[in-house]
């Protein structure tokens, strides 16, 4: 029995190989179908490496954080958080316009979004604790009200429709070295926290009552977990846009969990697929002049098809 504890750790090697082959297949198909643009894409590496790197980091983050969204059955909360953050960003734009300054590339707009996202999360957590209302009601209300206010404010600020589109679908080419640096730093902190406190986060999520009776401060750990989710979602949304982030929070974890034999396997595969989808989306976007956010969602859908194929065998 002792030997079993040491020797029987299963590997996820075959699943990594399978999804790596799919990635290569998509890259190859793109190359074959549009050789000229593909060569141009390789040649223009200086143009796209920062946005692609930013997309990759967001994908890695979403792959990790999305697992908890699915495990805690709060997938749609991520949508409410992104809209809450978006409302915060637009509110900061509106306030800045009164002062006659632009915040489009300022960290202040990110901080405003983060503050509103944190407020949304805590509103959700406290409503959930009170158990007076169904989660879906609150999530729906936050989403609808935030979305409505975003459109209203968007109508009154100088950035207007362009800013709303960026918020929803991201702006691939607008990633600067500074924003990439901030993203990488935040992602590194979140990954470090999730590794260091992996057991507290996972076990408190999986069996709250047992951990509480064992003397673990479950509320504190779950609050920290939600905080990392909120910050990760907000910074990713600011980079990629609301809908691609939502897709990245759902598709890679869904694929990973389909056949996962352990939490470690689920995390590794989800992070891997999450990291692959955005660069692939940029690639398709470049080759076929698709909108970048929609391209990422398309890449995610192609991986979903791959997972159905994997299930069939």
């Amino acid at each position, binding site marked *: 029995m*002792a030997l079993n504890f040491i020797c029987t750790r299963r590997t996820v090697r075959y699943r990594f190989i399978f999804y790596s082959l799919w990635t290569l297949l998509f890259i190859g198909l793109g190359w074959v179908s549009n050789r000229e643009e593909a060569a141009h894409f390789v040649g223009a590496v200086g143009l796209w490496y920062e946005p692609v790197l930013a997309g990759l980091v967001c994908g890695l983050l979403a792959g990790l954080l999305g697992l908890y969204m*699915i495990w805690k059955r709060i997938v749609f909360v991520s949508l409410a958080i992104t809209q809450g953050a978006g409302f915060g960003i637009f509110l900061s734009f509106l306030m800045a316009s009164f002062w006659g300054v632009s915040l489009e590339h300022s960290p202040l707009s990110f901080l405003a979004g983060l503050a509103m996202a944190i407020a949304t999360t805590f509103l959700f957590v406290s409503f959930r604790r009170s158990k007076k209302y169904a989660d879906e009601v609150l999530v729906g209300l936050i989403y609808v009200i935030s979305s409505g206010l975003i459109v209203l404010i968007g109508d009154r600020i100088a950035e207007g429709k362009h800013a709303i589109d960026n918020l929803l679908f991201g702006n691939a080419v607008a990633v600067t070295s500074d924003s990439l640096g901030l993203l990488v730093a935040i992602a590194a902190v979140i990954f470090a926290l999730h590794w260091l406190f992996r057991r507290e986060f996972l076990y408190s999520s*999986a069996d709250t009552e*047992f951990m*509480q009776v064992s003397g673990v401060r479950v509320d504190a750990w779950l609050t920290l977990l939600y905080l990392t989710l909120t910050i990760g979602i907000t910074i990713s949304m600011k980079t990629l846009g609301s809908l691609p982030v939502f897709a990245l929070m759902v598709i890679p974890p869904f694929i990973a969990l389909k056949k996962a034999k352990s939490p470690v396997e689920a995390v590794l595969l989800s992070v891997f697929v999450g990291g692959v989808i955005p660069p692939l989306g940029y690639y398709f976007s470049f080759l076929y002049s698709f909108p970048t956010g929609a391209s990422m969602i398309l890449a995610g859908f192609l991986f979903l098809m791959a997972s159905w194929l994997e299930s069939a065998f």
Partner: protein
Amino acid sequence: MSETLLTLDHLVIGYPGRSLSAPLALQIPVGVGVGVIGANGSGKSTLVKTLAGLIPPLSGSYQWGAGAHFGYVPQEDQISPLFPLTVRDLLKMGYHRSLSRLKPSSQDFVAAATEVLEQMQISTLPDDLFRELSRGQRQRILIARALMGHPSVLLLDEPYSALDDSFRGKLWESFAEWKVRKNFSYVIIEHDLNRVINQVDWVILLGPKETLFGPKAQVITQESLSRAYGAKLHLHEEDGEIQVHFL
């Protein structure tokens, strides 16, 4: 005078606007098995959850003896099948306080897990998925998880419903041995009266109008059980064991 395991000071359990017991006041010594019995809806699980710190008391208070640390076996596994947790993960959950943050496992964990799995007679592998085990195997794993932390008090909420008779018997034997050897105590809810009343020393009997508590011989009578369960029953002894038959 032996050490005190648990002191209840006019403890009233229930949910806001709905109390489930009369005020409970008692002292239970260390090293005993306590059975919590009563009809469906009488508040058995609520009492154990209150004592476990999961639900606040409506009024009054309770105090565990110094140094008590708990193992908890819930009524049904609370773990969503969405979590791909292995048997190893479940055991780590019970052992998490002794695990290093930086290392995935330790020799001490392997030794403790091996011992507890052998005690639970579990033939599954550590890498088997918890959600794919049979209900009986899952219950054994949940008990194993609770024992991983070497608790001085085990709180069990109907842990035996899917366990076979021979394993149940062995578990009772282990509990009896630990009570003597390790000053171990347990509080158990069990809906099957015959299963539980011969294996515990103290009883908390939750009835619709009264709550009786104390050493088993003082609490378990034909009249007290009839009142608590609202049914006619016959109580007799057979081979030194109490048997209850509902009429």
